Structure formats: C-alpha cells, structure tokens
C-alpha cells in the first residue's frame, strides 16, 4: 500500500528541521474533522477522496466515521444542538429543555429542521453537570438552560 503524505509535518532531528510524514494514518481523524466542520457531513465523494489520500479503502474511512458520534456520513443541520442527558442533567430538568427545543424547532430529537438550519440531538455528559441542564450548540457549551431560554438560544444562531 503506497503511503501518501496527507499532511507533511516538520520535525526537529539532530538540530535540523526535516519534513516527515511517518504518521500519515494518524492524521485521518483531523482531516475528517476539518471536512465535517466545513461541510457539515462527510459525503461518499469525500470519503473516496480521503481514502485515496491515505491509501486506504473507503470502507475503512466509513468505519471510522460511523464510530465517532461527532462525525457524520449524513447531512445534518447547519447548527447542531446537543442536549446533555446524563443523570445530573436529567435531575435538573433536561427533558423539559429537550421538549421545549422540539416544540420551538418543530422537530423530534434526532431530526433536522426542513430549512436545514438545526439538528437536535441528545448527548451523554458534556462536562457541565455543575451547571445543569446544559446544552452544546456547535462547539459552545451553555449552562443553566431553562425552557424559557430555549427560544433565545435558537435566535442567536445565524
């Protein structure tokens, strides 16, 4: 299998800067993450291109994508709203927050709005239990979310 250098890397060896690409495969996740960020999902075409880039079979790329919940092979909304449903959050009323999001966006959890703007998901602990209920909007962590704040959170996303 030919090794293709996806992202050349500069290292220092014997005091000199040299370019290496000895860890090609280990760059797979960062490459997939950047596609996910840009496109919102990883299309079949992108999977093939990434596979060619790394000299691996596209199925292998697919298997990696499906393992990680933040990588998606299906198109999702422009903004992904993830409501934490770990025990601390449930105790603090995360179900009410989810219901409010479902009502405001007119979708069920796991679905995307018709205009393609929002996807609503449940997620496990996001490390905000001290400020439960908490949600993650794209990369942003927002704590102490009440059903009353839901509309404002949606409006703030452009």
């Amino acid at each position: 299998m030919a090794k293709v250098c996806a992202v050349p890397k500069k290292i220092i060896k014997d005091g000199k800067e040299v370019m290496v690409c000895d860890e090609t495969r280990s760059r797979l996740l960062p490459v997939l993450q950047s596609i996910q960020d840009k496109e919102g999902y990883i299309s079949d075409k992108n999977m093939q291109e990434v596979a060619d880039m790394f000299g691996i079979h596209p199925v292998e790329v697919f298997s990696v994508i499906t393992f990680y919940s933040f990588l998606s092979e299906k198109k999702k909304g422009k903004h992904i709203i993830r409501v934490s449903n770990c025990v601390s959050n449930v105790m603090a009323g995360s179900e009410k927050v989810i219901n409010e999001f479902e009502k405001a966006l007119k979708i069920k959890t796991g679905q995307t709005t018709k205009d393609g703007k929002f996807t609503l998901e449940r997620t496990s602990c996001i490390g905000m239990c001290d400020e439960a209920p908490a949600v993650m909007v794209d990369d942003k962590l927002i704590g102490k979310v009440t059903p009353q704040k839901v509309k404002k959170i949606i409006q703030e996303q452009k």
Partner: protein
Amino acid sequence: MKVKDKKMENAPKRQGLVIFSEIEKGAGLESVLKIKREQVVAEISASNLKGRGGAGFPTGLKWKFAAQEKDEQKYVVCNADEGEPGTFKDRVLLSEYAPLFLEGMVIAAYAIGAAQGFVYLRGEYKSFVPALEDELKEMRKNSLLGENIGGKKGFNFDIEVRLGAGAYICGEETALIESLEGNRGEPRNRPPFPVNTGYNGHPTIVNNVETFAAVVHIAAKGAGWFKAIGTEKSAGTKLLSVSGDCGRPGVYEAAYGISIKEILKMADAKDVKAVQVGGASGICVPKSQFSRTIAYEDLSTGGSIIIFGQKRNLLDAVENFLEFFEEESCGQCTPCREGIPVLIEAVKMLKKGECGKEYLKDILSLCETMQLASKCGLGQSCPNTLISIINNFKREYTLSKDSKQEKAFNG
C-alpha cells in the same frame, strides 16, 4: 445564559492543598532540569502519586517502564477525554490551569525522553482549543517547548492538541491511542502495555490532566511535601466534581481520606438518599455508609460525585447509566456488547416489579461474568452501579413472586 469560558475570567480564585495551591509558572520544570532524568522518575515514585483518572496506577512506575525502553521515539499523551458522567474537573483545569498541566507534560517528556506530546481533548471541549494553542505558542516563545528547553541542550519536545469526536471509550488509554492513530477507538488487548508498545508502536505514557498538574507541584515542592497530604496509601488530593441535589455543585479539591459526609456538608446537600461515587461506572453508596472515604483503599474514583435526594428513583438513574453504556460500548467483546441490553431489560423488570428472586440471581451472576470477562474497563465496571443498588437499596424495588421467569425456573 453564559458561555463557559467567558465566565471563567471572573471565577473566584480557587483554593486547595495541591492543584489549586500557589505555584510560580515554570518552577516545577526549573527544578527537574537541575537533576538527572532518573532522579525525576525516582522523585515522582517517592511521592506515591497515582493516576487521577480513576484506575490509580502508580505514575512513577508508569514513567519508569517508559524511561527504561530503548526507543528513539517516545510519546507523552495527556488524557483530556474526560467523559465519565458527572465529571467536569478537567474542564476547570483545561480552561483555568492550562499552563500548569502542560508544564507537567514537559516534565514527563524530560523524565522518559520523549520528543512529542499530544493533548487528546474530548470533542465536547473544542471551544478550549484556541486558548490552549495560544498557551502552547507562549510556551514556545519562553523556551518551555521546542528545542533545548529551558537551556537544556538536547531536550526537544513539542505538544500537539488532538480532538476526540464524541466517543466515551476513547478515555480508555489503548482506545485513545487507537484514536490518535486514526482508527476506531477500540481498546487493545493488554499486554503489551502502552509504556512498551503505544502510539505507532512506540513507548507511550498516557496520564490524566490532573496527574500532570500534580506532577508540577511535586517537582517544585518535593515528594515529601506531597506525601504528607492525604492518607498513608493515597497521597495528595483529589479534585471532586460534585453535582446533583445540592446547594453548591462544583469542583472541590480535597485531601484523600475525606468522607462522603464531609463532601455533602461542603456542597450543602441535605436530605440525601444516596451518593454515586465514580460516575456511571462507579458505585451507589447508601446513607449507612456515608462515613466511607475517598481514597484508593476505600472508594477509588476519578472524582465524579452525584448526589441523589430522597425523592430520586435510583432505578431510573441506573437505567440512564446503562443506556449510556449501551450507546458507548465499542461492541468488540461479547460480555459487554450482549450483557448491557440484558441488564437494561432487568432494570425495566425491576421497575415494574416483574423480576423474581431467581432471575435476579441470574442477573447478578451475569454482572460478575461481565466484570471478569470484558476486555476493558467499560465492560468490567458498567455493572457496578446495578450491583450496589440491588445489594444496598432493597427498598427501591419489590421482587415478583410469580413472574414468568420464576415459573419457568421452578418448572
């Protein structure tokens, strides 16, 4: 509504005995660069520091194994993939104490002879990346990273931040390494251990964010100072992430040996039914055992403390935990993959009062099988909460006397 990192700037200065105690930037590294690599490992070993992620492997020993390996490429990995439900102490360290744990990584690199480090940051904490990158730049500028660090000739080390992508299992060190290599995050068989065969086959140490933070203080203040804090078998302090039914949830630094009672007082929790120690993979402690302590020899934990008030239904909680494990199990080994759905079904039966005495025995026996036969920590520890609830909270459920299972069992 507040975005987390903005609030951090106004957060009151934290206080604690080790991690949150005063220290000058670079003080730990400065003192280790004065001594030989072997002495650094010896100092960490002498401090009795154990891994803060929850498993509690002696840090000095881990470093010693990696330091002994004769390989030109070695790696230092910071496990910042905290995903245990109810844990958020690393969020505080990552956002408020980045220079501290990064310095700990540099110290580790010096001790084992590594040139490359990774911070494996959970995807949920992506918003911390810019600040971490800025800190790394700052360190390179101040000769705390890069070539000839701190003026020490030949000591070259750099750190790269890698993001996880929402997989709890990647907090397991071999799964984390698989993920770093660009694979599905499925745990490896051990041995070989990462200290011998880790990232891309090279010796690799994986330590928790909190462990690296403690290392800096030990390096600067000495193993003796550190060992004097805590209990005989558990040196130092533990960061506790306290949440649930209490007046003051948050991150607390406590010396090992602190009792549940004291924690509840600290967090202003009243009328408590049970305390979940160690998150979803931990155990549920009843009121009668609230004098038990946080320590490796008693309740060993990564720091997650979830408080359940009197009105909470513990079976709901354990169902939530098991559904979480069902979602996060990587699925490669049978006891974990096949066992978890059966446990969920059993909890549902218990809730409805449909589970009989004999079937419950079978379930406990399945729990034991999972603990013994699962490949990694996830499968081994996921039955813990259920077992502790079945044994300690008999009032939470009523056993059926004429369930179908019972009839089948009795013929």
